[in-house]
């Protein structure tokens, strides 16, 4: 169980306790964070769970797969070097304190 901070585009901060093994998308949606969508059930197929990962944590995440990298190009908002699909970010103790920013739109 570790802490994740999601910062919406309007500056709203949401702090969640996320269990190990749960994806950031699943945690966000199930807690009602409305600006992360994730309609494809977390299969890296819809690019609506796009987030910008805080630079301090980028190295702690496994690199995106080819599939995720391809899907990131479909994201609606600007894709930056620290862009990830958060259905592919699975919680673990090493990510405690992870901060992600949510783009202005998911479609």
């Amino acid at each position, binding site marked *: 169980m570790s802490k994740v901070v999601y910062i919406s585009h309007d500056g709203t901060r949401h702090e969640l306790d996320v269990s190990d093994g*749960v994806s950031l998308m699943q945690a966000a*949606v*199930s807690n009602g964070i409305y600006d992360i969508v994730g309609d494809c059930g977390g299969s*890296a197929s819809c690019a609506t769970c796009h987030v910008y990962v805080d630079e301090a944590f980028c190295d702690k995440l496994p690199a995106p797969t080819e599939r995720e990298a391809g899907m990131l190009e*479909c994201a609606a908002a600007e894709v930056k070097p620290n862009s990830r699909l958060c259905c592919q970010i699975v919680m673990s103790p090493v990510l405690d304190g992870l901060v992600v920013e949510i783009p202005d739109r998911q479609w």
Partner: protein
Amino acid sequence: MKAHEKVVIIGTGQAGVEVAFGLRANGWQGEITLIGESADIPHHLPPLSKAYLAGAATAESLYLRTPEAYQAQNIHLLSGIRVDAINREAAQVQLADGQTLNYDRLVLATGGRPRTMPADCAPLAEADNFCYLRTLSDAERIRLQLVPGNRMVVIGSGYIGLEVAASAIKKGMQVTLLTIADRVLDRVTAPLVSSFYERLHRAAGVDIQVNTQIAGFEMSADKQHVRAVVCTDGRRFDTDLVVAGIGLVPNCELASAAGLQVDDGIIVNELMQTSDPAIMALGDCARFRSSIYNRWVRIESVPNALEQARKIAAILCGKACRSEAAPWFWSDQYDIGLKMVGLSDGYERIVIRGSMEQPDFSVFYLRSNRALAVDTVNRPVEFNLSKQIVTDQLLIDPALLADESVPLKEIIAAARAEPNYA
């Protein structure tokens, strides 16, 4: 925005829950009451034929929202309570426990229930090893009977039948799939795609029998247990478990009893209103006129439930809503991810990108050089791009489409550059 209007939502499936949370996200201040006949914590349905049967779904992963999220958003969740009637004149719903609830706006998200076997061949209701699959308790009954080495008969070759067959194979069962159709997924895909799925399942060990009609079931002496499935041509299949997935019947009874217009679904207009403007409907139970296909449709899918829920939330809060997007759907069988966009009825030709010898292709269903639908297997980027192609009904060049060396992005750009692409 009418700050003190009360919204009552009937149905705690994907659609109803998304309306409730969508309203709050769009700034709704009034009371929101969400009523569901099921006593279960509102949960996702797609895992029930997949991860749940594999024993890989935690309770947490199934919930649509955490149990705490409802109160956190000031949504009154009433679970395990049936609505008996809608009293439109009084703008009230009558609950089975005798309570009445007033509403200013009523949203019907009543979903559907499994179509049952024809009466002359349905097993008695007490059979412990005959199951449909819609609810969590259905899924649990099935899961407990997925015993390695045991025999299972699946009736129906739609998504439920195929996904359950795949899950049972992974559990080491002997699976026979019987369908009245002449090919699997016959209502939704082209013959070539049906063949791909038949090959996939047969290679995994499923015995698929098409053009097979069920005559009835042989029961144990105490009628508690199905022993065999009997077909009209006389063939018998001994079995330990039967799962039938033969379609969904929309739950329109409350609506029709209240005098709302119903026709294989609750009829709604472009603002999601029923024939009573204070009452809206959405999801599996609602029939609407598609502006993409220019015909009335009722769509049974999670993406449709979510899209229509967001539309209702936007409309009620006076916000702009997105224009209609092409319906889409996914099905996971073994490790094959099928993602489909659009409705292919009325297609004239198909164009394939990739080869169907491998699980890596896209099939475009064209009519007059516009794609009515696209089926993709393990091609998520093409699937996403195909949503645009179908939604915007782009005029595309079939020769370019069939040429894998031309990226789909370029084909779309070329289509948009054409002066008469719309």
